[in-house]
């Protein structure tokens, strides 16, 4: 079929995508018009409040998670049988699908959903009214949104990138992929990465500057600790990624030769990418560790075992995360010495991780374990994650990695780690914080169905993949032969994947009916331990009035045990002032338009959009949301 903008004929999967998006769009639009929800949409487009921005992060992160999940099911359908020809997903289409799957999962699903949870919970955990820079927070979110949407657009124009989520040069340079496909990767990831850096800065300053009186660093909940350290990781790692992507952009747009030719070197890209990429794994894992720590303490009715060791091991892991990147490059031929050194540093990282696992176990020991849905996810995490950690140590044995590398064994390993920590963590976090976000509590029975389906599906998918890999199946290949001994394990993996899909569908249904039922819960539905459970559900815009005084770890729990209320003070802390603004939305989306112009060589569009972004800077520079409050004391809210 010939359609303008598409030089070639339009494949049926792209048509299917257009049709379904249009149908969903019409359904949503009718709903919005019928229910007259425009004001809500307008409100969320302009909001700078941490809970609302966090909610947006979660909604769009979840949307992209679904998209990437559909990709996963397409991959697994193609791999179900040897020499299979599922729909169109061979050759280029397959390459596009695993590229979007990986890229979307890492950059547009896992990372943003964690940032969303941080946005919601961190200020509440430390007694802050909002993040330190509310405006910047909105900018951060909309940049993620714009980058994600730009990246998604690629598929609809039948131009999805096909260079893997790692974008290895020289394949990703204009020499070998001259079309716009790879540009979508470069620009989409770049824009959203920028947003991630901003949000990380915001979290760091918030935690250092806006803690309630008495909330010393060593009294902070572990999720806050993890968020703090993760934010430092983001700051360094995403900056390195941004540099790498800039160089790649220059190679692609202006024929510089950073990553190929006699002066450049494709290996430079790998170093830059993995100096980002390995810490990224911990950017995904650490916040989940923090969440699990909080959830396990809450539902064991015990404080965390070895709090200082937990904090130190988060720090140690974060530090070591920058010293191990070459374990992704053992087969690149950097020589025996380099391979050995990085094998040792990689092994070392297992030690603090092990400390955390045992401390979780001993937190449970002697407690009363309430098997709520968030707790189930946390319990599911422990053995699953340990299995992923174990294969991690096996991969660190560099000479053995010559066999494992780039095979399905690695695919099994990193899904074990990421799904156990990040995805189970996000699910746990959603169930745990849903009351703080919406005021409703998700259905526990459906939650348990979700948990068991997902967990069983997860092991069924990825456990056999270890064997598939050791039987010689390279990753990123779309088929295999009958006699290779790969059929049984691949088939089981596919069954597992669909089981996981059903699990997520159950969760979706749960979200749907819970929001429809509108049964409000109180401020403390889980019998919590930390400050976030003292504020109303959903968290109001004017939280912590008056300000609590913190005298110990888990202050709310111990106050409840003594039958007291938390002590409060009328003293005011400097607190951020949030004013709704549409500028972040406009600015970020114009940046996507600018990229679009550059990609397709429509310079006029790029210039116009660039001018627009610059105008936003100027407008912003001349507006001061504190103006109203000058001379009215430190706390603006009081005098309004």
């Amino acid at each position, binding site marked *: 079929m010939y359609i303008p903008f598409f030089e070639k004929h339009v494949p049926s999967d792209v048509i299917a995508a257009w049709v379904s998006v249009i149908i969903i769009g019409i359904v949503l639009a009718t709903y919005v018009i019928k229910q007259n929800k425009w004001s809500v949409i307008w409100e969320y487009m302009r909001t700078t409040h941490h809970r609302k921005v966090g909610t947006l992060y979660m909604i769009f992160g979840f949307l992209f998670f679904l998209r990437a999940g559909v990709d996963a099911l397409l991959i697994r359908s193609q791999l179900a049988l040897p020499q299979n020809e599922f729909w169109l997903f061979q050759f280029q289409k397959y390459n596009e699908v695993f590229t979007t799957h990986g890229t979307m999962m890492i950059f547009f699903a896992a990372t943003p959903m964690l940032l969303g949870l941080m946005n919601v919970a961190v200020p509440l955990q430390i007694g802050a009214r909002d993040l330190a820079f509310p405006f910047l927070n909105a900018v951060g979110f909309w940049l993620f949104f714009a980058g994600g949407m730009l990246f998604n657009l690629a598929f609809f124009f039948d131009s999805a990138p096909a260079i893997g989520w790692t974008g290895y040069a020289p394949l990703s340079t204009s020499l070998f992929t001259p079309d716009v496909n790879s540009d979508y990767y470069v620009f989409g990831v770049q824009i959203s990465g920028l947003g991630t850096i901003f949000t990380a800065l915001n979290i760091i300053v918030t935690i250092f500057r806006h803690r309630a009186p008495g909330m010393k660093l060593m009294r902070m909940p572990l999720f806050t600790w993890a968020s703090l350290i993760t934010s430092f990781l983001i700051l360094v790692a995403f900056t390195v990624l941004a540099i790498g992507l800039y160089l790649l952009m220059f190679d692609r747009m202006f024929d510089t030769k950073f990553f190929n030719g006699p002066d450049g070197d494709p290996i430079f890209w790998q170093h830059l990418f993995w100096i980002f990429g390995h810490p990224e794994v911990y950017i995904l894992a650490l916040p989940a560790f923090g969440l699990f720590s909080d959830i396990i303490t809450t539902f064991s009715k015990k404080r965390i075992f070895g709090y200082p060791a937990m904090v130190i091991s988060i720090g140690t892991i974060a530090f070591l995360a920058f010293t191990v990147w070459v374990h992704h490059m053992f087969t690149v*031929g950097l020589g025996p010495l380099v391979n050995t050194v990085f094998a040792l540093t990689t092994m*070392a990282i297992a030690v603090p991780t092990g400390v955390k696992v045992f401390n979780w176990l001993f937190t449970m*020991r002697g407690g009363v374990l309430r098997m709520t849905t968030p707790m189930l996810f946390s319990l599911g995490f422990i053995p699953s994650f*340990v299995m992923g950690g174990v294969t991690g140590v096996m991969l660190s044995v560099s000479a053995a990695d010559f066999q494992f590398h780039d095979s399905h064994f690695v695919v099994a390993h990193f899904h074990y780690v990421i799904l156990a920590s990040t995805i189970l963590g996000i699910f746990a976090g959603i169930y745990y914080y849903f009351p703080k976000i919406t005021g409703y509590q998700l259905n526990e029975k459906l939650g348990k169905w979700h948990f068991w389906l997902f967990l069983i599906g997860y092991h069924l998918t990825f456990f056999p993949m270890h064997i598939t890999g050791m*039987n010689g199946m390279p990753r990123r*290949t779309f088929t295999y032969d009958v006699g290779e001994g790969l059929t049984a394990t691949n088939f089981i993996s596919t069954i597992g994947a669909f089981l996981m899909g059903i699990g997520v569908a159950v969760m979706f249904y749960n979200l749907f009916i819970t929001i429809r039922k509108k049964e409000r819960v109180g401020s403390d539905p889980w019998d919590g331990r930390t400050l976030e459970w003292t504020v109303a559900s959903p968290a109001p815009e004017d939280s912590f009035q008056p300000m609590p005084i913190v005298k110990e770890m888990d202050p709310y729990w111990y106050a409840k045990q003594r039958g007291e209320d938390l002590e409060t003070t009328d003293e005011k802390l400097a607190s951020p002032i949030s004013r709704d603004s549409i500028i972040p939305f406009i600015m970020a989306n114009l940046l996507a338009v600018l990229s679009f112009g550059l990609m397709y060589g429509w310079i006029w569009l790029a210039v116009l959009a660039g001018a627009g972004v610059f105008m936003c800077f100027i407008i912003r520079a001349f507006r001061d949301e504190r103006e109203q409050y000058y001379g009215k004391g430190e706390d603006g809210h009081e005098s309004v």
Partner: protein
Amino acid sequence: MKRLMLLSFVFLLSGCSDIAVLNPKSVTGQEQAYLIWLSLGIMTLVILVVFVLFAWFTFKYRYTKNKDGFVPTDVKGNLKLELTWTIIPFVLLAILAVPTIMTTYDHSPELQADNREGADKEGTHINVTGQQFTWTFEYENGKTVHDELIIPEDETIVFHITSKDVIHSFWIPELAGKVDAVPGRVYTYEIKDAERGTYRGKCAEYCGIQHTNMVFNTEVVSKSDYEDYLKKPDNQDD
């Protein structure tokens, strides 16, 4: 879930003898497989400890009706225990590190200035070139063949690996681990004492649209057959 895992474990053990990488057909591959087995062994120990503690604690301390209203005593930590699970892993990893270092030093591919450097190494030399989407093998007498690799048994084969365009990776799972083929660089990689047989070779680094089909056939033959093979004309255009 437990039963499921147990089942898959049995499944794993029973299948082990057929798993290519665990049962390789060259000395190089066997040394690598030894490391895999060793690390798997040590790690199984760790897994067992964690799983037993996990199952025990989850079962014993789960909520039951008679625990209603019971508030457990807080435990802040325990230095001795925490030191134990810091030090023991360290020791286990140290045990694993020694053979890792030794084998890694032995097996790591080396960067060469060009195809000729490293030619003094003992063994049969073969130049391997990856190019979208074929493998080219050049033997010592200049014979050049695509997508088919013939090597003599029980000898050290020194591969000189490079690429003409993007990065590929040279891998024969049943013989030994892989080495990337990088444009502008030549690596030497040795595979020692392969057994006679036919094995599949693959490209393990994603290189573009036909990556999946960038496979080659490997045959390990007797030394005399190898000599005969070298004398035959290429039979291939190049």
